């Protein structure tokens, strides 16, 4: 049995396997299927200052080895989270991390401030990469200047672990990563979804109500892996890797590329127990290769 503990800055994880925001609800949706205390952390659904209805149906299109979504950050707002969801999730024996999004810098700050006071929320993940909202979201994460501005502002307002979630829809993701590192991000997570599109040729219409949406699943894994590797080589802060992880081998690839921890997203929809299988599979890998601790294989890719 290898040591699976990992620290991401001040955030202590019992293992490097966490769930990606927007794919795991608030964890409660999965409690019939798995023991939530066995995973390293849960990134809850993207949370905004106010209630958001999200985009109109249809919001999803299946693709070869993946799916497009255009949910558009549907959530009941941060106050609802604090009053109605936090009282339940605070007792889970795992890290609960809130993914924070906004249309303006002021909204990001206000949301982060409200979460600052919650004892059992050790970190937030700043979502500057949602491709499915008209204002804010990805717009902040696709230039070094705007990414820097939002991270600088939230950094001043938020005292705990600040993770910044990066968009792959950029020319050079490592430049954005360096910019947010420079503004005080404690770690970065990547990748968010890739902007894509699906068409119904019979109807000559787009499948998604928003025309474009975010691509996830194994289809994006090679791109995600490349970006994690590039970013891990460009910054000193820890990197949390994600993008199409379906099993332990995928997760280990991300860790070898330089990720200190990983998030599992779309795979949760197909196998709600996948997180536990990945935890066990990482442990088996470490035992099989004679490693004492998962930290030994972070960035251990041999070139």
């Amino acid at each position, binding site marked *: 049995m290898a040591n699976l503990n990992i620290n991401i800055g001040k955030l202590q994880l019992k293992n490097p396997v966490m769930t990606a925001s927007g794919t795991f609800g608030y964890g409660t949706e999965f409690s019939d299927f798995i023991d939530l205390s066995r995973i390293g952390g849960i990134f809850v659904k993207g949370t905004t200052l106010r209630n958001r*209805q999200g985009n109109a*149906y249809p919001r999803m299109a*299946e693709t070869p*080895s993946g*799916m497009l*979504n255009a949910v558009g950050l549907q959530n009941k707002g941060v106050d609802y989270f604090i009053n109605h969801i936090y009282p339940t999730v605070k007792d889970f024996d795992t890290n609960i991390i809130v993914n924070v999004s906004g249309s303006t810098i002021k909204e990001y700050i206000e949301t982060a401030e409200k979460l600052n006071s919650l004892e059992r929320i050790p970190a937030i993940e700043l979502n500057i990469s949602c491709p499915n909202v008209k204002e804010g979201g990805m717009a902040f994460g696709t230039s070094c200047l705007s990414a820097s501005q939002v991270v600088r502002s939230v950094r001043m307002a938020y005292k705990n672990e600040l993770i910044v979630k990066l968009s792959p829809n950029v020319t050079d993701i490592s430049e954005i990563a360096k910019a947010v590192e420079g503004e005080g991000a404690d770690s970065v997570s990547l990748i968010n979804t890739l902007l894509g599109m699906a068409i119904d040729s019979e109807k000559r219409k787009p499948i998604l109500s928003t025309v474009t949406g975010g691509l996830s*699943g194994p289809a994006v894994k090679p791109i995600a892996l490349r970006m994690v590797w590039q970013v891990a080589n460009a910054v000193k802060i820890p990197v949390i890797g994600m993008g199409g992880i379906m099993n332990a081998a995928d997760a280990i690839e991300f860790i070898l590329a330089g990720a200190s921890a990983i998030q599992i997203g779309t795979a*949760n929809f197909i196998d*709600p127990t996948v997180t536990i299988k990945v935890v066990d599979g990482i442990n088996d890998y470490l035992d099989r290769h004679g490693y004492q601790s998962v930290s030994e294989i972070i960035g251990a890719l041999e070139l």
Partner: protein
Amino acid sequence: MKKFILDLIVTKNEALNNQYSLIILTSSEKLPEILPGQFAEVRVDNSPTTFLRRPISINYVDYEANELWLLVQIVGDGTRKMADLKIGDICNLILPLGNSFTLPVKKDARILLVGGGVGIAPLLFWGSYLSERGFSCNFVLGGRSKDNLLQLCEFERFGNVFTTTEDGSQGERGFVTQHSLLKGSNFDYIYTCGPTAMMKAVAAYAAKTKAICEVSLENTMACGFGACLCCVTDSTEGNICVCTEGPVFNITKLKWQI
């Protein structure tokens, strides 16, 4: 209700015609309680083009035989693979998902169940459930042609069966809402599942005749248990998930223009 991920065993896979298959599954263990209207998310193995599970209505549960029935319309690679399952194959399902139809208050309630195409699937289970509890059911089942009328013998076990086809190849010609039964009678409860246009016409008939109406929606979804937020419908409470708040909705909760 607690949800399960189960490996069930195929005991029968019958092609009802070239578009529809009836898959009968069993388990070495007792099947969990499942309510009419609920569905399963079926994993499709060995289909490179099928990434997500497929949400499939529970067609019928025979607790004595420990059997679960799925009626599948072949619309793409995923459902084709399901239709190709062989006896003894394993089929992995997440179930039971979603809510169920609501029982009428009075035993003498006049009940109409209207189904179109593969939308008849949950109505068989619901009809059996009503019938077991002493309610009498009237089914109006419709399709484009007689090939789309399925399981009529099964439905006849649980009530009076009426049919329509658009081409007149069986039953009355026209849409389900044009059936003569609807002109001559009044119903207290109407339950419907099928194409959206059909359900809207049924809902309009229910509104006009002041019947309580429940519809079962079939929105596309990625997960089936409230995590992906992809299957929403616009309701009086805003966007809500069909997989957890439905798939069965009282028509008064939906913002349909009828």
